[in-house]
């Protein structure tokens, strides 16, 4: 885990801004019907994905979720091919066959977003097994939401990972709601960290709006796993700004609650802190902001102007 210096601060801030602006842009494209289908937006949760992935090496793996744009960007994703994929274009990272729910880039260690809640947990656990069998020192971060902790595969895989001491960090992004149903209404145990106790897996919660806090906690357990000491379970407390998807009227949560969380905005928290600590100046922050705006515009233009897949591509890429 690198020391907090200007270079690292710039990287963390830039990635969080990229995700925020990317998601705002996707929302805009959805509203204009330029983007079709569903998209679950990561805005508000940037500190968790960016902080956690920032402690990984390039050759480490992640598995992502249905809310996966942020993870894909943080795992060194290319804004242009990601945006093109969301529009279902041939130039997309998955050639227009995956879409928002299936952003993946194995060359960058991203084993994929997933349309099934908990769908990445098996893959992550298997990647951990594979690492162990090949005697590598890689680590997997397995992202999932609070809703997935009520799903069977979560329990099956945590048991296996603990039994075989697999290098997997199970990172629960607790954004309080599984679509509309709150953790309180869905989980018998409200403190989700307790769910790991049954498997003898160490667990810890973290302020998911503070990128440095996420880095510290995830970094500690990643290094522990890299040494062969097995999995950890981390609950990152966070919040999604947008609804579950574009059609969500957000009737299950209050505007006061939304305001409370928006005041705990991960980008604002980090920017202020960097200014206070004298690591970044207001001008530098504005400059990154402007640069990111430009990159998002370029990515959007690239995506919109990209061709659709050719009809004959319907049957390609199914079998090796």
């Amino acid at each position, binding site marked *: 885990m690198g020391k907090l210096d200007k270079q690292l601060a710039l990287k963390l801030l830039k990635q969080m801004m990229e995700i925020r602006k990317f998601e705002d842009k996707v929302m805009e494209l959805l509203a204009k019907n330029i983007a079709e289908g569903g998209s679950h937006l990561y805005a508000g949760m940037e500190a968790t994905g960016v902080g956690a992935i920032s402690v990984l090496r390039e050759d480490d793996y992640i598995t992502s979720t249905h809310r996966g744009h942020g993870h894909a960007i943080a795992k060194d994703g290319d804004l242009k091919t990601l945006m093109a994929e969301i529009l279902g274009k041939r130039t997309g990272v998955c050639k227009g066959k995956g879409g928002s729910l299936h952003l993946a880039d194995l060359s960058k260690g991203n084993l994929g977003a997933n349309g099934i809640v908990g769908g990445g947990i098996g893959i992550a656990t*298997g990647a951990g097994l594979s690492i162990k069998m090949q005697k590598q020192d890689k680590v997997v971060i397995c992202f999932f939401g609070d809703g997935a902790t009520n799903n069977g*595969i979560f329990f099956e895989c945590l048991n296996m990972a603990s039994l075989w001491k697999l290098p997997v960090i199970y990172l629960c992004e607790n954004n309080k709601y599984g679509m509309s149903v709150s953790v309180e209404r869905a989980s018998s145990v409200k403190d989700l960290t307790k769910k790991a106790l049954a498997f003898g897996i160490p667990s810890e919660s973290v302020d998911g709006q503070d990128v440095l806090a996420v880095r510290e906690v995830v970094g500690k357990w990643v290094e522990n796993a890299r040494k062969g000491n097995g999995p950890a379970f981390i609950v990152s407390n966070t919040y999604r700004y947008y609804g579950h998807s574009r059609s969500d009227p957000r009737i299950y949560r209050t505007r006061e609650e939304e305001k409370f969380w928006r005041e705990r905005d991960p980008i604002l928290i980090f920017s202020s802190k960097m200014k206070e600590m004298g690591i970044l100046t207001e001008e530098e922050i504005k400059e990154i902001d402007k640069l990111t705006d430009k990159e998002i515009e370029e990515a959007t233009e690239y995506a919109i102007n990209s061709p659709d897949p050719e009809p004959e591509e319907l049957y390609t890429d199914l*079998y090796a």
Partner: protein
Amino acid sequence: MREITYRQALNEAIDEEMQRDKKVFIFGEDVAIYGGVYGVTAGLWKKYGDERVMDTPISENAIVGTALGAALTGMRPVAEIMYIDFIGLCMDQLNNQVAKIRYMFGGKCKVPLTIRTEGGAGRTLGAHHSQSLESWLIHIPGIKVVMPSIPYDAKGLLKSAIREDNPIVFIEHKMLYNIKGPVPEEEYTLPIGIADVKKEGKDVTILTYSRMTLFSLKAAEELEKEGISVEVVDLRTLFPMDIETMVNSVKKTNRVVIVEEDCKTGGTGAEIGMKVIENAFDYLDAPIIRVAGADVPMPKSRVLEKLAIPDVERIKAGVKEVLK
């Protein structure tokens, strides 16, 4: 040529592939110390140890999901689902993850994963240990489905399955494990997706697979004495289906009986029959006949179990019917 059992043929296939490629490993319930519920992996744990022959918890969904993760990241798992009846427990992983991941990712990954399982009736094990669920699987693009009937095919096809960079569900039959047949000492593989004419004939084509191939051959032998010449085509792979071999046989005989152990409605035979109609309708001189499993949960009673799946007499009756 030496004769070995279907079980031994499968065991040799896995053993040889494990020797050949260090990335191959066995993963499933009771596969290590116990050697598999039907003994297919017997002896391999002693030979290769815990690292490559792994007993898993009873967690079918995690077995398939984890095997997929390992396959994506450099390993070549041979996972076992003890009974095909348990496949419902891992259908999400199989259908939503294993089968689709390569396509969803634009072809940018390989899934060298073999899932061995075993199905079929015959041991009076009742409704949860006797099913034939292959039709569920051929409905999922992205996986291949292999169902061998004899030791020679079992070995050659399993070796090919393990070497293939695609996910394959390899369905054995519990009543075939003790059946012996000729298997060469020398190494060989068989191509996936190619049917085999197990017996040539000129009057009627039987299209079948797995254990029903043996029943069909017995029926054909008996019918021969009555002057009826039956060709028996063993599909061996259900997806992709070898249409060419099927059509060539239909062109010769002009009459088709499909013999399948699975439930008739929505069964594999329906797909086989439509493939014939789509590709060889003009050559048919009579409607296709299906001799299939009854549309009931498999009953325990020996008497009822026998009635629930095709037998030699019913296959013979089907052949005579198509000749009317």
